[in-house]
């Protein structure tokens, strides 16, 4: 495999993300990142795209927000642009037309959720997808947005789109730890790695750290003990530092926080930069500026 090192966000990029500089609070940015990644995942499922391409797209998406503000580009557009790009990178390109159809469907579903008057998430009128008219402008608008998003991702990441996925490393580490026979361990750790794709960690930490965190959470959950005495800590075998592993665990844990209906709805509305700008207008106060610094 390639030995070239994949890029990671710099310290200053992490401390001051462009979105936070624009007044988007830390937690909101984190939620929008996760939402965008779920959106990519949904599109990937509908397109029957390979998991490697979806994961690559999510990592590129996460990197992008360390160089660009969500006020400037919508997470929906960038998410779809990332999926389009990642599919080429993984040699399983998708047709523009198919991606646009799926994007359109997902957008319609979101606006259906937003407009359904019922306050309860369970009881709302059934969603009906209306295929877009090829004579309308939707197709060309979405196509333009996609092409621009793909190019912006490339440009703003300096065309360094090298991504390393964690799965091979996980298999190796589990082997070293003698855990490959435990199917529950493999499945759960694999699941944490996938969940972590909704967090920024792949843009922040080297793969060994993230894999160690997934193994850590797994073994804790399943009550498996691994050497953790001060002289002999298993994660040091993999060159991970404790506080980094711990930090990654935190990112993953925060994904599982429950969001109330209101927060959830307001997130749906921020799939576009328009929604984000509107939120900023409505919420600009000294309070939001001091958050998340």
């Amino acid at each position, binding site marked *: 495999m390639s*030995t070239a090192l994949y890029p990671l966000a710099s310290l200053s990029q992490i401390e001051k993300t462009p979105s936070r500089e624009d007044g988007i609070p830390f937690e909101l940015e984190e939620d929008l990142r996760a939402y965008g990644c779920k959106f990519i995942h949904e599109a990937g499922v509908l397109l029957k795209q390979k998991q490697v391409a979806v994961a690559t797209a999510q990592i590129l998406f996460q990197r992008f927000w360390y160089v660009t503000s969500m006020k400037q580009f919508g997470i929906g557009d960038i998410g779809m642009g990332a999926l389009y790009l990642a599919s080429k990178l993984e040699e399983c390109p998708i047709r523009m037309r198919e991606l646009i159809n799926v994007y359109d469907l997902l957008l319609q579903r979101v606006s259906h959720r937003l407009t359904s008057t019922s306050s309860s998430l369970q009881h709302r009128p059934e969603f009906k997808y209306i295929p877009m008219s090829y004579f309308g402008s939707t197709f060309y608008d979405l196509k333009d947005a996609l092409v621009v998003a793909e190019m912006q991702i490339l440009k703003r990441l300096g*065309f360094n789109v090298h991504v390393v996925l964690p799965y091979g490393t996980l298999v190796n580490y589990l082997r070293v730890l003698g855990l490959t026979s435990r199917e529950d361990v493999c499945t759960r750790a694999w699941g944490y790695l996938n969940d972590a794709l909704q967090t920024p960690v792949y843009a922040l*930490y080297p793969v060994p750290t993230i894999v160690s965190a997934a193994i850590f959470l797994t073994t804790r959950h399943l009550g498996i003990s691994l050497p953790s*005495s*001060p002289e002999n800590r298993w994660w040091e075998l993999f060159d991970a530092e*404790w*506080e980094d592993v711990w930090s990654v665990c935190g990112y993953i844990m925060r994904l599982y926080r429950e969001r109330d209906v209101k927060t959830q709805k307001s997130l749906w509305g921020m799939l576009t930069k328009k929604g984000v700008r509107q939120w900023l207008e409505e919420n600009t106060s000294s309070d939001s500026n001091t958050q998340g610094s």
Partner: protein
Amino acid sequence: MSATPGPSTPSKKRSRWDADEDNQPPEPQLSSKRRAKSKSAKSETPPVQTLPHAPPGRPEPTHPRHSIFVPPRTLHPTLTPSRSVYCYERLNAIEEGSYGVVFRARDKQTGEIVALKKLKLDEEKHGFPITALREINALMSCKHENVVNIREVVVGDTLTQVFIVMDFIEHDLKTLLTVMPSPFLQSEIKTLLLQLLSAVAYCHERWILHRDLKTSNLLMNNRGTIKVADFGLARRYGDPVGVGGLTQLVVTLWYRAPEILLGATTYSTAVDMWSVGCIFAELILKEPLFQAKGEIELLSMIFKLLGPPTSTSWPDYQSLPLAKTITLPPQQPPQLRQKFPYLTAAGLDLLSRLLTYDPEKRISAREALQHPYFSESPLPKHPDLFGSFPSAAAGEKRRKPFDSPSAPARAADYKLLTEFDAYADAHNA
């Protein structure tokens, strides 16, 4: 709770990665905000319950001794947006290739001379072309003494202006071979071939096929060092190949391996090795080995030089898609020795192992590096002892190289040239 380190912001922790000499103990620092957050996590959310306690802090924390497999974070590049092409001052156009235009330029900040290759992006129906992505990715992942160094990718004013910035290399081998008064010496050929082989071995070990090795894609500086360039057709070979398999529209005709000529849709590193064989021959002959006008003529030239393939020399021949459409000439002995009368037995052996019909039996780059040809007299010449030549690319001398067809077709696009001129002029004014 206060004793439990909650999820921390990476910034706090990561200051240690960025500062090499920092010996601060890794005390888990928490903002009160973050702690509040982890407290507010719903307890029924499954994994939260299992949130562990941090192991007791060590009295004397040490940096992990990083293994070679896990380089420290400081070695990872950061996320860096592309700079503008206006960071460079345009000097002269070097070459109009099939996929873009190459310019010589000067970095305005450092004064360094570089080569800028403009990618052709106009009229793209599928967004950013996958071939351009492969070219950039291959260059970025091949950092080797004998692969041209990519410095960065810069952009112009519009979304269609993208330039690969490389180290400027004075010569390409094709031009050099035509302007050189006398051919390379055996000792020089060995040096060049070793360099080429080590670059190819490196790429192949990184799962990258070049797929367009030929003398015009081999650059050479004035210090006798070869740099493999033009990864415009490169591909990773472990990747899914998609319906229809790999394209046959690769590798400039004269350097194209017989399995591609016969329609193979799965091929591998051996196609590059055939091209290396053609280049080896060209270095000796001072002209391309197979100057064919078409695929059929090329096949018959190959059959003539090597003798037609047999069921022993190439067992899979008959199963290739186009094999049935071709009538093999009657068996005749190979002409290699006659074509290269002055090559030693070892040299001829290496050449015939490179120009081997069966891709399975064709020598690999790693093996070729160990071939006795390189350890027999005359030994490879030290690169420093190579003479220097006037650089055509730097505009030092007019040149008129023989024209080889390109892969797959050379299309002139002067629009690109004038575009670049226009904005370079505008900027320099």
